[in-house]
């Protein structure tokens, strides 16, 4: 159990860094990765992204993680950094079409 948790933590840490640095680079955010918490909302008061930025996030998912969101109805994976990472990890560990509409961690 602990071994599995350690593996999952390492996998998540790696994805979090890739997502945060991707957001910083692509959206010209002023923060460094340590200043963006995992639970930071992407929109509203959090990183204050707008609809144009949302498009850039979708491009990042495609170019960096190989994930196409075409046909994904529920956009709640964009709620915060953590939900975005959960979405990425769920798609990189399973390629079943059914997972396209799931959002681990937010129900």
């Amino acid at each position, binding site marked *: 159990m602990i071994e599995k948790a350690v593996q999952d933590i390492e996998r*998540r840490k790696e994805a979090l860094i890739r997502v945060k640095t991707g957001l910083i680079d692509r959206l010209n955010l002023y923060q460094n990765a340590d200043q963006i918490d995992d*639970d930071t909302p992407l929109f509203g008061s959090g990183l204050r992204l707008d609809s144009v930025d949302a498009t850039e996030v979708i491009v990042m998912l495609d170019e960096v993680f190989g994930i196409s969101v075409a046909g994904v109805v529920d956009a709640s994976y964009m709620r*915060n950094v*953590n939900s975005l990472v959960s979405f990425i990890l769920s798609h990189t560990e399973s390629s079943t079409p059914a997972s396209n509409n799931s959002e681990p*961690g937010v129900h």
Partner: protein
Amino acid sequence: MKTLEEIHAARGAQMTVRNGKVVPLSVSDRATAHEALRRNFVVVDYSHLAIVDVSGDDAFDFLSATVSGDLAAIRDEQAINTFILDDAGQVVLDLYVMCDDERYLLLTECMSGADLAGRLASRMSGQSVEIVDRSDELSTVLFEGPYSWEIAKELFGMDVIGLPFMEHMPVSGGILFRAGNHGEFSYLVICGKDAAAALLEDTAGLYAKYGAVFAGLDFQDLARLENPCWDEIRLGVYSRCPIELQLQWMVRYDKDEFIGKAALEDKLAAGPRRRMVGFVADLEGETNLQPGQPIRMGDAQVGTVVTVGYSSERKRTIGQALLATDYAYADIAGFKAGPPDAEVSLSTSAIPFVRNFSFLVNPLEHSYVNAGRHKNVLEQLEAVQVAQRT
């Protein structure tokens, strides 16, 4: 016209003192209020909200050096949600700072208006700033829930529909401010006491047609369990560090000096020893987990339960814990909490814990009361599917 006190007494409200004000703690039972918050809306006397007016030639510079957020990011009729920190970089209070014409309005649940005004005044050193506590002359009424926008539209006009989050507009008798922490559409009406009483009395019976419920401040218990935010009562005894609390979005590091900035930067450079993370019980149902109980991974104690309760939306015990940084990541299974004879298996989770119903409601397309419109996206999709079948 009845006073606020008479209205609350007539409803049999259980009152409490919050922030130096006597306000309703409980009006409806918690389950009813929570259901209304998540599916209709609640109407709450929010008069405990301290309101302090800051104006003068140096108001911007003075406030910018006081709060941790980016005051330069807002213009007239916009607001930020930010902190006032102490010199050690610890949270003293969270507040909304509203830019309103030639003044700033500061709103907080964490400190009385007199204390906030006094704290601000003690930081002044020759600047041209006027600080006035408006808390005794103004009251606030909260409308919060998936259809609160619709009652606000009915009361204050069509412009409500276009009001963005964290912006405000003048309305008859006061200010309508769209702001909230619980994931639903939320509006604060800041107005005189008579106007607040008129809104709460609802002589026209407007609220009933929306399935709305009058609630007291205890509605926040479940709302903030499911949609965590800074909450001094629940979190303050465990941590006041924005880095540990994962609330750095309320801090703007690259602006000029502000109270606590240097200490916070030092903490960030050193790295936090622990961080707040959401957790969900692996099995459905209620548990006896309590705040303060240890959390373990294997034989090692790795953290402490901070908030905990049962979420009817998730059908499980949920909460937040301060975990050692090495373990403080979402979606990790294998944690145990509680005493050895009543251990509960947990997994960490991203927050918020719920998919708020307001995300399924579009004010431009839906309506709770207009029979010609669908109430939400789910109804809309169902109608499309039925049409396709026939």
